[in-house]
């Protein structure tokens, strides 16, 4: 059974932005799924439509087989959403927010209290239950959003950049938490801009770009196609073009900065020996920060700008 099924999803916003061009996506029950893509690719739009917050232009969405339009009651009951932007009432406490949410899903008060205590405790918020939501720090607000999405115990949990702006320690604890949820049987879909996050959590991934799914694979296969790492070398030598070393993917970022993709099987000693032979002197070296951006760049280059081939309709 698919937890989530998206068929031919189209979205044209009122201002004419064509955000989604026929998205097709299946997420199997029990999966931990990452939806990856650069800024503006259409991730939040897709999630917005699944959450009933954005109106679709065309297409079908099913949650555990329930059509979101026709059987919205069943579909929405099975769904928990953690949106990208904070959307609490500023004037309510953490506990009130959770209890309201429980109420919207029809949980009677005693059960709502029980669940509120359970999830606020699990997310380290129980001591702060009587604090107004606006007095919580950014990290706590993120956690409150997760607690809120869980109070009706959804079978499919969708999180839109849940760890954006969250420190490393909290991110790790969220990962552990989500992994446990998934082991407990909850299907999870998340979007992220950190490859490490997808790598550490997810089984399957889809890459969305310009409103189209351009890749749908396992995280293992995706990582296998990546250069192991990209390094940035600061040079003492001033150069106009990279040294002629055809076995390496070399680019000049500027006249004293060289970028190199090390593929699997290439090691650093050889690279340094080769560069030394080419009279390149290296002052320092660092990791290129975001591997996911690299990945998008390599994919987008392979799939040139989709708008162009289509003609203007």
């Amino acid at each position, binding site marked *: 059974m698919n937890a989530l099924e998206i068929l031919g999803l189209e979205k044209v*916003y*009122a201002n004419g932005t064509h955000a989604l061009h026929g998205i097709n996506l299946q997420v199997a029950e029990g999966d931990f799924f990452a939806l990856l893509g650069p800024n503006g690719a259409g991730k939040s739009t897709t999630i*917005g439509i699944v*959450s*009933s*917050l*954005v*109106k679709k232009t065309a297409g079908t969405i099913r949650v555990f087989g329930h059509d979101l339009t026709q059987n*919205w*009651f*069943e579909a*929405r*009951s099975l*769904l928990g*959403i953690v*949106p990208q*932007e*904070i*959307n*609490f*009432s*500023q*004037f*309510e406490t953490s506990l*009130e927010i959770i*209890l*309201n*949410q*429980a*109420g*919207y*899903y*029809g*949980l*009677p008060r005693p059960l709502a209290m029980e669940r509120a205590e359970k999830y606020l405790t699990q997310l380290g918020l129980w001591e702060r239950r009587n604090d107004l939501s606006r007095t919580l720090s950014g990290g706590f607000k993120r956690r409150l959003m997760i607690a*809120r999405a869980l109070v009706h115990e959804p079978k499919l949990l969708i999180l839109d950049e849940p760890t954006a702006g969250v420190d490393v320690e909290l991110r790790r604890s969220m990962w552990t938490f989500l992994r446990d949820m998934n082991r407990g049987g909850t299907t999870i879909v998340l979007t992220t801009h950190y490859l490490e996050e997808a790598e550490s959590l997810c089984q399957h991934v889809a890459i969305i770009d310009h409103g189209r799914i351009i890749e749908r694979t396992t995280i293992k296969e995706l990582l296998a196609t990546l250069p192991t790492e990209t390094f940035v070398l600061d040079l003492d030598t001033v150069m106009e073009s990279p040294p002629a070393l055809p076995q390496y993917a070399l680019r000049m970022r500027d006249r004293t900065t060289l970028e190199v993709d090390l593929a699997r099987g290439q090691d650093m000693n050889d690279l340094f020996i080769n560069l030394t032979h080419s009279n390149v002197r290296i002052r320092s070296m660092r990791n290129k920060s975001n591997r996911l951006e690299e990945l998008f760049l390599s994919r987008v280059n392979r799939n040139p700008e989709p708008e162009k081939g289509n003609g203007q309709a």
Partner: protein
Amino acid sequence: MVRREVFKVAFATIVRKEVNRFVRIWPQTILPPAVSMALYFVIFGNLIGTRVGQMDGFSYIDFIAPGLIMMSVMNNAYANVVSSFFGAKFQHHVEEMLVAPIPNWVILAGYITGGVLRGLAVGVVVTAIAMCFTHLRVSSVLTIIAILLLTTVLFSLGGMVNAIYAKKFDDISIIPTFLLTPLIYLGGVFYSIDLLPPFWKAVSYANPIVYMVDAFRYGLLGTSHTHLGAAFAIITLFVIALGGYALTLLERGTGIKS
């Protein structure tokens, strides 16, 4: 879970949240109408009213009391829904309800009930204040209850439609300032429409608020200019029309879904 049970709990949740909201901020919601009511009674009732003499056979203060109560009730029912729902849009927590398995009519009913309760709560407070200044009599309890309910529902619906269309904070005060206040002031709160020349009297009958104030005054004083049945029919018609409109807007996602 059974749908009906979920809807019931969801409805109760929205109502509870709405009541908590206006009770929590009582200095903004309950206190101002109480203060202005006291001022109206002191100035119009005691100071000016004694010189005005009789109006429709009652002392001026007795005559305006029902209208003033009605005015507070209307304003507050409207204000509650327009500021609460616009706030929910503005802070985006309306999304909590839109994601949940509840239909729009439950959301609408919850907010309207919140507005009705705020209107009635303010009604009780201002009535208590009125009783400090004059002896209120009750002629028809049934009329009073029915007209209060219909009127608060209607003004809550108005607040809802306003909130749905509002894009910025200014938008939630334009209608009350430029439409409601004139209609209420010209709705026979301060004077008997019998005093008007025939033309303006006829125009006044196109103002639905005239019927509400008049019917409420009948409930208290036992006198009216309009036909009570006509009053109820007109108000009910407005409720149905505005209710249908508000629901359609919610179904379309106007102002809340992109």
